[in-house]
């Protein structure tokens, strides 16, 4: 049983031989095999060829395997960032009553998690200004897909176009395409101009056949979008939903989405509470109260119990797949609840000033790095003459793929955007690593 030994059966099945014997007796069979009602034609002998190992051996093995990853300083961003996550987040979220629980189908015995999710929802309501936030989608891409199907359910017109920026992360574009695949919706791109929405072109592209306009702030290239009001007005003039892609950290500083007319906010909430984790996510989804009965995913609401005290419960479950089946607002069942718990603890540990400071730093860090790299011979930054959050695009005289590859040899990872463009993010990098990067760039960009 001990973690230092290779198990002979399941190390997590506690049966003694005597218990097994007695239980088989009670059931009225001679062996476990008799309990399996499987036709001979499809039986399997259990030989997968997977050797059981001890805990110790597995830890060593995985550690060894992961050591094969190159030790790179990452200047990568586009939705995933390595913020320092306070120890508090691990210690509290790993409490096993949280970690080993299931969805809160029995609210009386799961008040703790329900309250934590209620607090998560509330945090997003404060950041977005919208009345309703669900308690998680898988990631930003699937949240965008769900926003489009929400627009499809709400649409007043016979139109069926979803408009998205031409500069959009590939994952979001492709997932959106799959989510609208079962509807009559088609996804079209509208042009960007110097890192922001080309408002005039968007206006020309829009008519009543649009059901949703999607924009991002900051954009995938780290630009602050300066025309949110105008985009929202254009969407509403054409009876389309205005869906804004956002970043909960930068929301502590940037315009409140509700104030610029956003009807839905989606985004990557894993910037709080989760390291980059190879792209594992937490999808933010918030919308106006009037759409609450069309919201995908779980909602925690406040009610009272028999003592008259406030208590929490999952609510409006008649929207969900386990009740409404093929007419549900979404197929989501297992979500990212535990990541939402971590995001809430992280935000709470930062507090209002801490979160605002993090947002401010994400602006000044980008400015400072752009100022430094544009001094490097063969590099010009930022390419877009805009305010930036976290990251920006730089021009390289040398072919960008070669610059990135040489930088990787020097220990730095950057995005390649095009023939002569790289994207750089310095948010939360220690100054020594920024210095090292600038030195390396100076070597390779000339």
């Amino acid at each position, binding site marked *: 049983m001990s973690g230092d030994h290779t198990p002979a059966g399941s190390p997590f099945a506690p049966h003694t031989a005597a218990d097994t014997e007695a239980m088989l007796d009670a059931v009225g069979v001679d062996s476990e095999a008799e309990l399996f009602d499987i036709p001979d034609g499809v039986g399997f002998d259990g030989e*997968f060829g997977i050797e059981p190992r001890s805990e110790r051996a597995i830890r060593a093995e995985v550690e060894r395997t992961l050591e094969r990853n190159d030790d790179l300083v990452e200047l990568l961003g586009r939705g995933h960032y390595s913020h320092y996550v306070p120890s*508090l987040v691990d210690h509290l979220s790993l409490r096993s009553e*949280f970690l080993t629980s299931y969805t809160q189908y029995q609210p009386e015995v799961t008040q703790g998690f329900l309250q934590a999710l209620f607090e998560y929802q509330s945090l997003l309501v404060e950041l977005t200004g919208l009345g309703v936030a669900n308690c998680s989608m898988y990631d930003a891409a699937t949240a965008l897909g769900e926003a489009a199907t929400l627009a499809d359910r709400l649409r007043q017109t016979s139109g069926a176009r979803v408009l998205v920026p031409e500069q959009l992360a*590939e994952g979001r574009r492709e997932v959106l395409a799959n989510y609208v695949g079962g509807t009559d919706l088609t996804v079209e791109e509208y042009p960007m101009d110097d890192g922001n929405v080309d408002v005039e072109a968007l206006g020309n592209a829009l008519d009543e056949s649009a059901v949703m306009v999607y924009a991002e702030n900051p954009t995938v290239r780290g630009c602050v979008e300066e025309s949110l009001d105008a985009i929202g007005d254009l969407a509403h003039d054409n009876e389309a939903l205005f869906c804004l892609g956002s970043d909960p950290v930068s929301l502590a500083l940037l315009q409140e989405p509700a104030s610029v007319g956003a009807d839905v906010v989606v985004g990557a909430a894993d910037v709080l509470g989760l390291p980059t984790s190879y792209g594992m996510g937490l999808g933010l989804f918030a919308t106006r109260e009037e759409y609450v009965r069309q919201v995908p995913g779980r909602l925690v609401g406040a009610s009272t119990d*028999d003592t008259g005290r406030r208590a929490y419960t999952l609510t409006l479950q008649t929207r969900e797949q386990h009740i409404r089946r093929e007419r549900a607002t979404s197929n989501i069942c297992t979500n990212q609840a535990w990541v939402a718990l971590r995001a809430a603890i992280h935000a709470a540990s930062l507090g209002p000033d801490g979160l605002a400071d993090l947002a401010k730093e994400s602006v000044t860090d980008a400015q400072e790095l752009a100022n430094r790299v544009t001094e490097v011979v063969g590099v010009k930054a930022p390419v877009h003459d805009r305010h930036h959050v976290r990251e920006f695009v730089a021009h390289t005289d040398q072919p960008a793929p070669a610059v990135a590859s040489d930088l990787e040899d020097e220990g730095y990872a950057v995005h390649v955007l095009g023939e002569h463009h790289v994207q750089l993010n310095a948010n939360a990098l220690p100054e020594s690593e920024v210095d090292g990067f600038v030195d390396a760039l100076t070597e390779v960009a000339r």
Partner: protein
Amino acid sequence: MNYDQARWTDDDERYEPLLSEKHTDEADLDDAPLPDELTRDALELPDLSEPELARHYTRLSEMNYGVDSGPYPLGSCTMKYNPKFTEDVAVLDAAAVHPDRSPESVQGTLELLYDLQDYLGRIGGMDAVTLQPPAGAAGEFTGVLVAKAYHEHNGDERSEIIIPESAHGTNFASAALAGFDVVSLPGGDDGRVDLEALEAALSDETALLMLTNPNTLGLFERDIEEIAEMVHDAGGLLYYDGANLNALLGRARPGDMGFDIMHYNVHKTFATPHGGGGPGAGPVGVVDELAPFLPKPQIVQTAEGRYDFFDPEHSIGKVHGYLGNWLVLVKAYAYIARLGDPGLSDASAKAVLNANYLASQIEYEVPYGPFHHEFVASAGEQDAADVAKRMLDYGVHPPTTKWPEIVGEALMTEPTEIENRKTLDQLAHAFNAVAGEDDEALAAAPERTTARRIDQTAAARDLRLSWQSLDGE
């Protein structure tokens, strides 16, 4: 067994106060490094010290029930023990890499994922596996999209998916999300697929039959070979819902039964924690013929033993922004490695033994059988929801209730392999004690949990979904 759940009360109005009720403050946005017109006017958030937060979340955790708190026989959800070492494996520093790193620079990460794909392929009897879907329902959606792309590629557009009435709601929702019409398949008298009903449902429009085996009643579909033949003869594909795979580990494989596509619920079968509702992961396995349609990118091992990405020829594209829930996948890998062949087979043996033993010990009627990993008892004249509330007072999490509807007042029970005989006896005692109680006692329950019976109707009628909506309370 005696039981009282922690209950932190502030006053007569509420239990543990909300963060916002303890202390909030306005953020200082004055020295914003951006022009005013691009920034917000105000931001008010909770502002607590670390010790205050530690107590708040510790109290909340004490007011929550997990597998580590006690038995959790939630039918169809496979709540089993989550080994502690897998958490440590998943937080190894090297695991925290950015998803846009070049494949050359993350060889270790890709090797681990590749090995997990290999394990899952062997366990399911599948030829190719994608790890991208972030949950079981996302796996279903992926599988349905693969089937759709396959048929379309063959110039054979099909509009219907057949799903047994007793199937998981996600099956129906995933089929609808992908644009299919759902044909609901009534169950036979023995709780299994009725072959005549299946014959009637099959047509040129059948893209897919979605099935779990054992089904949600815990019954093995003994006619599975014939079912597969019928579906294939009609030109359709057969989809395996992996929710109940824990019953079959090492005993039978979906691929051998004729299934073409399946998803794995690693957060069920492979004991990765449910985390209060997620994250999970829903890898999808397919037979060779369908591999070209899997999401992109896939991971391939080169002749030199390196790992790289490739886009399958007719890929459906992506179902997640990146490659899914990495941390969950690492835990699944560690769990499978810990058990290996003997452990995997033993897990299903003991899960099936436990279900049958518990079914034999309870006084509620348990129709159908023989059972695999779970059974569905009927609360009879009692209201199953009330039975569940009362069971909470006995220190056990109740079964899934009122579903599948094929059994009246259903109590769908899955003890899993992790409970010992004594705990199963305690569970049976809880069932039997409640069975003997009158409606009044049931209606008054629960009494020993943090909160007493919660008014769920009021929660839906008068929506209060944030602390902002509680102003003045």
